């Protein structure tokens, strides 16, 4: 999994879209799954598939949209992972989705929120053709992957303002680590009049462009030594 995250990192640092170069099939094997996909959007309007083309996983997303029930909808609503390790045991919970999903060949479905605080991007769906829970290690990998995919999708949504050839900030600096990163995100969103999601991208881009630690830039924002609504010196 470290290699997968490094691959995402390298893709980002090269100015390419790290996610586009990452084969979802490879990642699925590492997480111990038979298929994986990620979708943007959390509302009732459904999802836009943005990563992964494996037919069963994407079919499971389509099913949920068609039937109006299923784990992805619950994850999008509650923001908490749903781990259905045996769909045969979930016939009451999802009377339409569970049998239809089993017809597609899935026996276990694991869905993770793609979010950082109130920034909700979408969900990531992992499925297996045999029932059984994820091991603690696989679960850890899946959660780490969900974090990385969240950031990749945010960067894709708000490319750097100064032109496409400017690389996006890398993954090397974890975002969910420091309280000040999230405080600064909130402050920047007010300063620029943008969403928290865009504010986080701008904060990371600034740290990258200035070759500084994300935590240090965030601390400057919180201490009001740095504002994002003033022209750069």
């Amino acid at each position, binding site marked *: 999994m470290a290699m997968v995250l490094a691959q995402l990192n390298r893709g980002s640092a090269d100015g390419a879209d790290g996610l586009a170069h990452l084969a979802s099939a490879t990642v699925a094997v590492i997480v111990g799954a038979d298929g994986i996909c990620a979708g943007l959007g959390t509302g009732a309007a459904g999802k836009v598939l943005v990563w992964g083309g494996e037919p069963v996983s994407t079919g499971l997303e389509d099913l949920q949209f068609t039937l109006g029930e299923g784990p992805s909808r619950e994850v999008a609503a509650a923001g908490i992972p749903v781990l259905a390790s045996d769909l045969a045991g979930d016939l009451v919970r999802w009377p339409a989705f569970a049998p239809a999903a089993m017809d597609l060949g899935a026996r276990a479905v694991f869905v993770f929120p793609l979010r950082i605080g109130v920034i909700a991007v979408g969900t990531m769906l992992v499925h297996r053709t045999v029932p059984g829970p994820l091991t603690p290690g696989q679960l850890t990998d899946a959660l780490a992957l969900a974090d990385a995919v969240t950031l990749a999708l945010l960067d894709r949504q708000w490319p750097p303002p100064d032109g496409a050839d400017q690389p996006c900030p890398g993954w090397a600096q974890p975002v969910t680590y420091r*309280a000040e*990163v999230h*405080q600064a995100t*909130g402050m920047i969103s007010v300063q620029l009049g943008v969403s928290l999601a865009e504010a986080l991208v701008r904060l990371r881009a600034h740290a990258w462009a200035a070759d500084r630690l994300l935590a240090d830039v965030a601390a400057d924002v919180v201490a009001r030594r740095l504002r994002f609504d003033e022209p750069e010196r």
Partner: protein
Amino acid sequence: MASDGASPDRVREPEDKVSKVSKVSKVYFGGMSVTRERQLVETFVEVADTLVDDFDVIDFLLTLAERCVQLLDVDAAGIMLIDQRGHLHAAAASTENARLVELFELQTDAGPCVDCCRSGEPVINADLDANAERWPQFAEAARRSGFVAVHALPLRLRQTIIGALNLFSTENRVLADDDVRVGQALGDVATIGILAQRGLYQADLLAAQLQSALNSRIVIEQAKGVLAERRGISVDEAFELLRGHARRRNLRLSDVAREVAEGTTSASDLLGAP
């Protein structure tokens, strides 16, 4: 109101009524003061009341951290949780003060909570001078904040350590066995609270539960930032506003934080004019 730049040297607890009462416990009964015994009972009743409601996990942990300071012979308390990658994060502190929070964040690599979580054993009465080499960054920052001793008690679910209860003393008083037992009981209550969050379908899904608690904390941090910038105040002051507002209106802290972070119209009186 002390802002970031002008914090007093010492991280102090607000001197509310309850904490004053707790220090005047003279009548001993079976080794424990009657006053404290009653406070303990009240705390556990309060906990039981909270857990049957649609409770807010971070608010619950904040209250628990405050009760630790009132019930134990310590001056500050915090609850640290381990994320899915083994990193420690502050979930709640008895005082949401940037200096105190920093003491939790400095324990990412080395500190009493890291030791406690790795070994599963409590760290009790650790003198900060004596441990200056063991935890260089943490010990120095803690001493700068006026603390001289530190303790960490494991938050444990069966074989799994999910975090630690971190206690700080400003004087070199020894934390008695009785205090350690009470502290561990409060830590166990914190564990129960984290695991009892609503909306979690799978009883054994510890990683998801921890992730959910930590994400609630991120929402609060984002809201602090939005509110601080909108009102031109420090993030510490923003937290006081958020919590005071939630308490006065009997709202969940997480809900208020989410509305502020998202800029929902229901939060407009808190946010002030844009």
